């Protein structure tokens, strides 16, 4: 028995093992960094740095260090540095263990005026509830490779009490619901248009029956129609050369992002309209707005640049505005007397501009798709386009082609992945038991879904976990300062009020490098957000009971290293002098001896 123990101890205390372990650790870390850049940080954390085998490697290294250190007992004074360095590293590892097991990290997101009492975890996890099986708030981490196309995964998690399992099938790091066109049941013509404009490719489905997919604005205006007969198709194709009479459009007013009124512009102008507490006077309407000698003038009756002059008045004060249909920027131009009603105005006009390049595609039973354009696009005289063939003209640098057509198209809402940035993760899950499997179901971050398997119902919540802070933080003001003459940020800061409920609230100023420290928590200003005229602060929050231990380890380690490399000869000489007074100590330079 004893020999086995001493053999293990001897092996553990071997310096050669140290060298091997250090080399293996270095190799593993190199692998880890490349693994991270290929699969994303959460994957690397889960499968490398926080994995069981990595822990085992660190524990082995620590055991090796302890054994090597213990083996050299009793120590001579000149071994002080050696002892300190190794104790320092062990202290650091102990502190790291405390941090990992008892520490907490999270985020606090507050708009100005909001109060928060809890932090949320940085990543969402799946929370499973199966009341019938006695499973409540079971947490499952969702960590999968972040890839552009999403990742095929196959991971089964056994739920408590053994009866059910949850299978994860597919993972999207940045999911988004989108419409797509597929083969359906009902008669519903559709076509997929492909184009290049200055060698930049584009592609889109066009569905005449769907108001969202009827028309395209790029590469030029394309309108599609489904005609009932060939004759109707002919008359629709003939409209390609003319602007469609779409009316004048409307004026949409919003107050604090809430709809206030939508005023149609067809009808007499000038005219007086009431919108909530406000009075709107439509003063002058233009189909082709130009400034001539500084005065707004109507240049033609064509819809080239539709614009509207109007006034808004309330309690005796009046604002004058100008809005344009085709110019989003500066749609709210105050000509005089802006009283800051905070009203946003938009000229809403869906129709084409008179001078716009335009193509019309019409589907009719029997004749299929035909096209006409108001500019040279190299279209055949009868308007019949071959599928897959490119049409275009050199002058406009545009080429178009019909990639495919569908007679029975259906528009469906499907979940697709946008890119590999983990912004809005989603996971496809399935409940499994010995009775069978449930239908697969997508769960998107922030959503709740229910799976049914037999008579059991499983509730899934894919959300960030919340942890109470134990006190509350109220954001009074977020302050950003910029470098002179630029919009480049120099500092971020927040004014907050902190209260425990027992004492009066305390005002605290948090800056980029001066966190709020309270009850073991530290709140760091990590970033900010602006949305709808409001500012929000994002604080990263940390609770770390291991940090002081780690810092102690840091100090011991550095002091030990200095002792090893630079003080050892001094200590050794002092020791020799004290034990053997008559010994002759060669007086070489201190640095030359180790």
């Amino acid at each position, binding site marked *: 028995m004893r020999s086995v123990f001493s053999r293990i101890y001897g092996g553990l205390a071997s*310096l*050669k093992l*140290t*060298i091997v372990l*250090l*080399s293996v650790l*270095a190799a593993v*870390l*190199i692998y*880890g*960094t*490349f693994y*991270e*850049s290929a699969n994303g940080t959460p994957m*690397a*954390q889960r499968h*490398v740095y926080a994995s069981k085998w990595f822990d085992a490697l660190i524990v082995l290294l620590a055991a090796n260090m302890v054994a090597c250190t213990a083996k*050299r007992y009793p120590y001579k004074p000149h071994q002080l540095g050696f002892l300190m360095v190794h104790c320092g590293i062990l202290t650091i590892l102990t502190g*790291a263990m405390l*941090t990992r097991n008892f520490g907490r*990290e999270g985020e606090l997101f507050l708009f100005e005026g909001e109060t928060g009492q809890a932090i949320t975890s940085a990543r969402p996890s799946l929370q499973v509830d199966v009341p019938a099986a006695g499973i409540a708030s079971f947490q499952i981490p969702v960590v999968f490779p972040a890839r552009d196309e999403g990742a095929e995964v196959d991971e089964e998690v056994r739920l408590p009490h053994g009866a059910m399992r949850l299978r994860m099938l597919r993972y999207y790091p940045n999911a988004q619901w989108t419409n797509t066109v597929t083969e359906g049941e009902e008669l519903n013509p559709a076509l997929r248009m492909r184009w290049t*404009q*200055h*060698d*930049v490719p584009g592609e889109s489905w066009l569905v005449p029956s769907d108001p969202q997919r009827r028309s395209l604005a790029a590469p030029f205006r394309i309108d599609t129609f489904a005609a009932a007969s060939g004759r109707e198709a002919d008359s629709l194709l003939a409209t390609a050369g003319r602007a469609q009479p779409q009316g004048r459009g409307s004026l949409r007013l919003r107050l604090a992002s809430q709809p206030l009124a939508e005023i149609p512009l067809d009808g007499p102008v000038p005219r007086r309209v009431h919108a909530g507490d406000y009075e709107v006077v439509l003063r002058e309407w233009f189909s082709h707005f130009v400034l001539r000698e500084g005065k707004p003038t109507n240049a033609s009756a064509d819809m080239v640049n539709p614009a509207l002059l109007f006034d808004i008045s309330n309690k005796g004060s009046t604002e004058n505005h100008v809005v344009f249909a085709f110019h989003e920027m500066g749609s709210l131009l105050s000509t005089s007397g802006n009283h800051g009603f905070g009203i946003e105005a938009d000229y809403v006009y869906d129709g084409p501009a008179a001078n716009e390049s335009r193509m019309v595609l019409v589907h009719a039973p029997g004749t299929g798709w035909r096209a006409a354009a108001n500019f040279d696009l190299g279209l055949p005289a009868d308007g019949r386009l071959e599928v897959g063939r490119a049409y275009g003209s050199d002058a406009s*640098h545009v080429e178009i082609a019909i990639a495919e057509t569908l007679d029975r198209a259906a528009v469906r809402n499907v979940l697709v992945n946008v*890119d590999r940035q983990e912004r809005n993760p989603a996971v496809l899950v399935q409940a499994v038991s010995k009775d069978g499997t449930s239908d697969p179901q997508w769960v998107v971050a922030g959503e709740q879904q229910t799976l049914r398997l037999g008579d059991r119902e499983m509730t899934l919540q894919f959300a960030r976990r919340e942890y109470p802070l134990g006190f509350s933080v109220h954001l009074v003001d977020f302050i950003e*300062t*910029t*470098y*002179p*003459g*630029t919009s*480049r*940020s*120099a*500092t*971020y800061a927040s004014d907050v009020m902190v209260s425990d409920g027992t004492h009066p609230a305390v005002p605290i100023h948090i800056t*980029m*490098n001066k*966190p709020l420290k309270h009850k073991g928590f530290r709140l*760091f200003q*990590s970033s900010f957000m602006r949305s709808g005229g409001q500012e929000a602060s994002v604080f*990263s*929050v*940390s609770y*770390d009971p291991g*940090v002081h231990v*780690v*810092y102690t380890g*840091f100090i011991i*380690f*550095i002091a030990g*290293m*200095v002792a090893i*490399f630079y003080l050892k000869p001094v200590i050794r000489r002092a020791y020799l002098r004290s034990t053997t007074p008559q010994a002759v100590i060669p007086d070489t*330079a201190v*640095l*030359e001896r*180790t």
Partner: protein
Amino acid sequence: MKAKTTFWAAILVILPMVAFAQPPAPATATAALDAAAVRDLQILPVQHAGRVKPLDTLAREMVQFVTGKRRYRGQEPIVTYLSWTFESEKWADEPMIRLEYLPLREKVGLDAKRNTFSMNELRSNEPLMAIFRTVDDKQRRDEKLDKLENEARDVGTKLLVLNEAMSGGALRVIPSTLNANATWFTFLEVQDAPFFDTKSMRETLTAVIDAFRAGDSKALAVAGATLRTDLAKIAPAAMPAGTKIALEEQYNRLNPFRKAWILYFVAFVLLLVGVAQRARVWYIGGLAALLLGFAAQVYGMAARIYVAGRPPVSNIYESMIFVSASIVLFALIFEAVYRSRIFALTAAGLGVVVLVLSENLPLSSEISPLVPVLRSTTWLTFHVLTIMLGYSAAFLAGGLAFVGLGLHAFGRSNSPFAVQLDKFHYRVVQVTVLFLGAGIILGGVWANQSWGRYWGWDPKETWALISLLAYLVIVHGRFAGWLKRFGTNVASVVGMNLVIMTYYGVNYFLVGLHSYAGGAAFNVPPWVYVFLAAEWAFVLFAFFGGAPSRRRTSQPRLEGAPAPGTRA
């Protein structure tokens, strides 16, 4: 192409001649202006990119950015820049905008044989404009750009900068009296800044423009001086200290880091001759050149610190300057302690390499304000400076290891010099371990102070740890007796490569929190592979070529190995 040519020229030892050669005289009328004529305009304070700088600096940055050259057609940058503004009609067809990236030129149908184009050529190129629109759309949607689009964006920014220069929109020289943080005004906005006598200001400006266009040095000097004094009177409180502006202009003019590497190069040659000739005079001359070069570097760094008002830790360029200076500093200290010429020689060589790289790699040498997260100065400064000292020691150790491998290759591995060199080398390895260890720890302290997490396995910090582990393997390997002289040298070269990966490669291959230090980089330059291949070819050559005295005649005790009789 220029950057690469200069780099290889340095390697081929013809660089000093290139640096001192006079470029051809420019063809424009402004060539007649003498240096004194623009002196007052050079130190005209202008608000740009978040700070107030001399107009000279703005001109240098913009000329470098647009043309890719320090000087365009040999002109003083300020002359070029003022000519863009005051004689913009001359420049619209001048092929001076650098477009290096060949695939982009091919894609948009520009002449593949040229790499500079005129403003009008680029503006009338429809395909390029179409790519600009795509880039614009993508940026608004916060999407990633591919390599081609990134290059196109750079060209677009060059066009914007040039356009701004030509319209005078960048000359924010009229200080605002409102407060210290307010935006200054350009001449175009004079009506918005009615705090002074705009009429006389306009007259002075007209005088400057007329004198400049006529190439009248005397009149320009007078008008320039008047303009500067008049502008300084508007808001004296908003003006930066005159010494600061003057020092920055002097720093620009002296270009101390180029002087430093030329001196290091001279030192290297003298010390090399000294090794061969064994005459003291060469050594003293070499050491003097090394010291002078070091002084030039210290001056340059001090100037940057004074101008920026912060430690030199904001980007790779500044860190490379610091690394080369500390390599030389370490060498000088070791030189003082051991009196071995090998330190000075190695450091001179490394100093040249690092400084020439810093000058020729596509790095920004501008002094620019820091992003908010880097503004926690204390711990960040300690961290960066310590870790940079660690890198410097690693490079010095690597350099010495190469010398040791060279000795091995030529059968001198058991000469007394080789034994001594090994001791020196191991000393430097110890310094590396100390500073790398301390640097990583201070990085942890900074991270904890800045976002509450002292360690997060971020690629940069992980690689710093990997480098440290490599040097710990050397220390333990020596102690266990596994690593002898040859092995230590090879391990030290490995360590140096890992440090290079940590310092530079991580920004290319891996992304992480530290990426703001590197900027967006995509392609590994081919010479990196050439360097690695040459390095390992040399190691192999040393291993197989060092045949004659492989049988050891004497076995002196290795530094770091336990003394005979002690327990391992």
